[in-house]
């Protein structure tokens, strides 16, 4: 869990089974463990109406643990980008009563939530649990480019090259933290770069 900071910084919870007709889980890497733990408190038959979409990490662990929950549908995806068309279609055809559960890295939770918001799901009704890396998606406020997997403070924008302060200010709509030029007032000031988002 991230340390408490400002109010726009997302706060993640612990997954818990919600009343509903269908349950859609989207998870990556160690997020799988959050689902496996939640399953302990789920009512019998809960996963009969569930779909689990899993993006395993490079080590490919946890697939068996999720399959053991015997969801109605189980799908492996190599990346979030490859999962997008399927997710969009699922949400476009879904009915009220669908509940969404997101578990894993901040980048996955943010991007999946972004797609869900567009489909008309209110963000407060989505269950989230953060597991794994604290690396950030960052939007450069100057050039609007998104830099993935930012671990340092400050960080260099992958698009325009400005040195950016990675703020805690977060936009659900963009699914990213805000990066603002750290030495705009005097470009000769170059603060040391530290690895802080691991």
């Amino acid at each position, binding site marked *: 869990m991230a340390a408490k900071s400002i109010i726009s910084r997302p706060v993640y919870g612990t997954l818990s089974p919600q009343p509903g007709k269908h349950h859609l889980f989207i998870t990556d890497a160690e997020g799988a463990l959050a689902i496996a733990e939640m399953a302990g408190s789920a009512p019998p038959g809960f996963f009969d109406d569930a779909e689990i979409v899993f993006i395993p990490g490079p080590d490919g662990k946890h697939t068996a643990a999720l399959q053991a929950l015997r969801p109605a549908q189980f799908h492996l995806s190599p990346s979030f980008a490859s999962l997008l068309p399927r997710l969009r279609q699922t949400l476009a055809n879904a009915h009220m009563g669908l509940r969404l559960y997101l578990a894993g890295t901040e980048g996955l939770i943010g991007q999946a939530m972004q797609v869900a918001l567009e489909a008309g*799901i209110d963000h407060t*009704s989505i269950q989230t649990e953060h597991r794994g890396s604290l690396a950030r998606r960052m939007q450069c406020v100057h050039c609007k480019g998104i830099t993935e997997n930012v671990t340092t403070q400050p960080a260099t924008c992958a698009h325009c090259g400005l040195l950016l302060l990675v703020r805690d200010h977060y936009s659900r709509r963009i699914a990213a933290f805000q990066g603002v030029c750290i030495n705009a007032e005097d470009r000769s000031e170059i603060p040391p770069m530290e690895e802080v988002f691991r």
Partner: protein
Amino acid sequence: MSTGTTKLDVVVSDVVPVNDLVTRFHFRRRDGELLPTFSGGAHVVVEMRDGERTRLNPYSLMGSPLDTREYTISVRRDDVGRGGSLFMHRNVKPGMEMVVSYPVNLFSLDLRAKKHLMLAGGIGITPFMAQTAQLAAEGGNFELHYTCRTASLGTYADVLRERYDRRVRLYHDDLDERIELDRLLSTQPLGTHLYVCGPAGMINWVRDRAASLGWPSETVHFEHFAAPQPGLPFDVTLAVSGKTIRVDEQQSLLEAIEAAGVDPPYLCRGGVCGQCETNVISCDGKFIHNDHWLSEEEHRSGKKIMPCVSRFEGRSLVLER
């Protein structure tokens, strides 16, 4: 800065009996100007001067928000209430000058909705009259399910069917027609918002089923103005203003406070808006809570009361007013 609304001086331009129980009232501005624009779901508080007594009741505006030449409300006669609806039915005639509040909306549409699913029971149809007019003009996607006791008491059912055809479904109690609620709630596209207005029992039933079927609370909207109930008279001490007052059988606590010259803010007088929430300093007795504003926990705590609709029975009550 005080809360509350500005008042409008109006004249009753028409009184139209709709059926055995419901009468419609039309108001225009006395100065001939247009009335303020409003949004579907808004209400006004109507001041009824009945001799010595002034009653203030909220009624949903049911005309099209696109037409502000007049405001229209529909009032269902309640023969056992405190007399507000009877006053409207018996005393209010065309040409009479009255005062209503600016419109206030505590039941507004969520315009993000991909579809609006509306459930009405009885006189709860009135806010939907304005909301459907608003949505139809914008090409909005809505569906209305309307339950009434009999066809002859189905206020505006014919008008709605004519305007919106198959987007309106009617259910008559006397024919044992019932909304298949679970099926209805399980077949709505993602992004639908649900609106319910009608008797308390219907609202509770719909909210309860929606929650069980996985509708997030942000997607479920309801409005039910409680009417203040008559009851045993009781005495109250107002600590801030240093007054002791008596609340009569037919009077609400808020009306009694106002009669003593103390004016708490209000927007609805029906236990919904939260403006008149009042702290209890001490009490010896029991509360009869009637509002939709305070949580159950707050009701149990005995530390707060909504004087617009709630009463008290017991030896002493001291309020922070």
